[in-house]
């Protein structure tokens, strides 16, 4: 497969791994946060950590779209389907994420709510066209990558006069989240979370470009390398980060040049700003309330905004006590630091969002790394790799 196989070659991986071993200085550690769940997934699925020397570590970031959605918003989605009787359309990842009292969309569906998994916003529009007497809501989540398709759907619905379609908007923004992590006391003052640099988002950057990261690489003096989602992308970007640090640089570099341009996709950006505007604040699971970190639907499209169309009740939404998802999403804890990991909380019975998505750190640990030690033995929880 073109553009895939080239980036999974063993001989190249060995070469890059060799360079990393040579250039990583033995007197220090390198802690790199891979922002995106896509990177986390690649690191685990291909065993990238095994190819790194012990002093090069990955810190898993919050860039897993379903992981950062607060319980309250999920409870709202369940309410839309159950109380308002809409057809709720959603991306598959979202189905099993537990809300308050472990209530997930898949459970609501089993109890009779009309919840349908879609692959794209176009499927949601199609369902709305085919069910003119029903209200159809698209549960929009994700970072900048999934935002343009939602914008397209809203523009299309407006043009077609599709009155039974609306969007429950939960789109969030990457640069604001990275900045928030860098400003957190754990990173800035206490130094309990060590982050020496970032593997920057790949798909997100294809939309927003590499430019938005320039501010905080300068402000916080942390190097950023935009990295593709293939394992060789991750390894090459890691090498680029090590070189920047060794040379005392903190720049935004782009490893993913086959897709990402400095200015990004201007057409997509224009479309998004036609339809969406910044929310002054938005609640993230793990990061708390982050200013200007999410989008809402502009007033011109208010009639297609599910939050305007349906009255959502006040709720006492609660995460499971002692679930460490929030700290894990900030990079402050590892999945294995959580009491629930592997005992109460498994992919079969997830207590927190990080155990659901294959991009979530807990699910990746569990699925690919559980009981595996660096020398390839299998062993108890305390010895897990990563």
């Amino acid at each position: 497969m073109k553009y895939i196989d080239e980036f999974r070659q063993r001989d190249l991986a060995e070469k890059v791994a060799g360079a990393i071993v040579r250039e990583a200085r033995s007197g220090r550690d390198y802690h790199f946060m891979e922002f995106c769940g896509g990177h986390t997934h690649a690191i685990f699925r291909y065993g990238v950590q095994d190819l790194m020397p012990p002093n090069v570590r990955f810190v898993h970031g919050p860039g897993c779209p379903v992981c950062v959605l607060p319980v309250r918003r999920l409870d709202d989605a369940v309410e839309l389907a159950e109380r308002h009787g809409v057809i709720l359309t959603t991306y598959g990842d979202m189905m099993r994420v537990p809300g308050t009292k472990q209530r997930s969309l898949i459970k609501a569906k089993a109890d009779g709510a009309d919840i349908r998994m879609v692959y794209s916003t176009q499927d949601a529009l199609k369902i709305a066209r085919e069910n003119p007497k029903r209200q159809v809501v698209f549960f929009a989540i994700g970072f900048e990558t999934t935002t343009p398709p939602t914008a397209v759907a809203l523009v299309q619905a407006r043009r077609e006069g599709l009155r039974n379609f609306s969007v429950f908007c939960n789109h969030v923004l990457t640069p604001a989240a990275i900045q928030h992590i860098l400003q957190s006391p754990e990173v800035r003052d206490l130094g309990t979370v060590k982050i020496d640099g970032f593997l920057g988002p790949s798909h997100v950057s294809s939309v927003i470009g590499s430019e938005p990261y320039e501010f905080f690489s300068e402000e916080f003096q942390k190097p950023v390398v935009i990295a593709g989602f293939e394992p060789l992308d991750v390894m090459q970007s890691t090498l680029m980060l090590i070189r920047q640090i060794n040379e005392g640089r903190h720049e935004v570099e782009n490893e993913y040049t086959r897709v990402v341009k400095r200015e990004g996709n201007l057409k997509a950006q224009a479309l998004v700003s036609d339809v969406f505007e910044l929310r002054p604040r938005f609640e993230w699971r793990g990061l708390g309330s982050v200013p200007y970190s999410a989008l809402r639907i502009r007033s011109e499209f208010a009639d297609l905004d599910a939050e305007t169309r349906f009255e959502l009740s006040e709720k006492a939404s609660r995460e499971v006590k002692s679930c460490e998802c929030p700290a894990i999403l900030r990079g402050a804890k590892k999945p294995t630091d959580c009491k629930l990991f592997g005992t109460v909380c498994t992919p079969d019975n997830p207590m927190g969002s990080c155990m659901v998505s294959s991009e979530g750190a807990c699910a990746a640990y569990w699925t690919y790394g559980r009981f595996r030690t660096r020398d390839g033995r299998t062993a108890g929880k305390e010895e897990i790799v990563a």
Partner: protein
Amino acid sequence: MNAIDPNLQGSNDVIDMTHGGGGRAMADLIRDVFQRHFSNPHLARGNDGAVVELPPGRVVVSTDGHVISPLFFPGGDIGCLAVHGTVNDVAMMGARPLYLTVGVILEEGFARADLERIVKSMAEAARDAGVEIVTGDTKVVEQGKGDGIFITTTGVGVIPEGINVAGDQARPGHAIIVSGSIGDHGLAILSRRENLEFETEIRSDTAALNGLVGAMLAAVPGIKVLRDPTRGGLGATLNEIALQSKVGMMLDEQAIPIKRDVAAGCELLGLDPLYVANEGKLIAICEADAAERLLEVMRGHELARDAAIIGTVVEDRHAMVQMRTRLGGARVVDYLAGEQLPRIC
């Protein structure tokens, strides 16, 4: 591809409630569709059950329910799938499958032409596999209470003298062989799902494997484990065997055969081919020194041209399946929690 058309209800072209009512309509349906295509002396006798002769040996019985959407897909349909599935389950015990029973549940409104097509396909598949469909049952449920058609088949077979195949016999050092490319069936089905249609040449690999198993056991009677990696794919099936045998496994990702189109389809949908279903592949585990001989015999059979040794059984009290990735790292190949869900990012 749903066969039900409410406008045709009540006409001769669709199944209605009388076809399951025990009266003449049902008798006609059984005679004109099932007996006609499955024709054999056992059925023709019209008794409540079949009386069959079995050669000497231990008897294997296995049953499997078949539900699938769409009913017709590239490379097959629910009819041949229902035959292959059970024939293969019997064959994976090292047995020679001989007889099948068939239970069909039809939904009111199901097109009779589709039923004919499915039954014909079952008859052909059974003939090709050398098994007889000796008894059956038909029921009709009201519209909305079934998904067109459900088929349950039970197979009976006999294990020849000297053969002892079971899931708990994998031991450290044994070789793990797969009979060909993985994921073909699952991807073929997905490519025809209503909300997902994409252009591809991928066809389901659905096939009866009893002929292949016969040839394998004739060459290497000491095969320890045979299993067909259907639902849950190669990943789930190897985990089952590892748990049953209380061993670990180390796979080599580069050795696992995957068709280009299947790999591309999986990339597109964010799926891991290790967990995508197969209906015409098997996993064989045998002593290391018999592996090359077994592989040679398999590759000589049309259903296993791409057979490959994909890994080794290792000692591991945690019974984990691990894989050396093509990049040179390693990972655990775990059971999935449920169905694979496509990723967002």
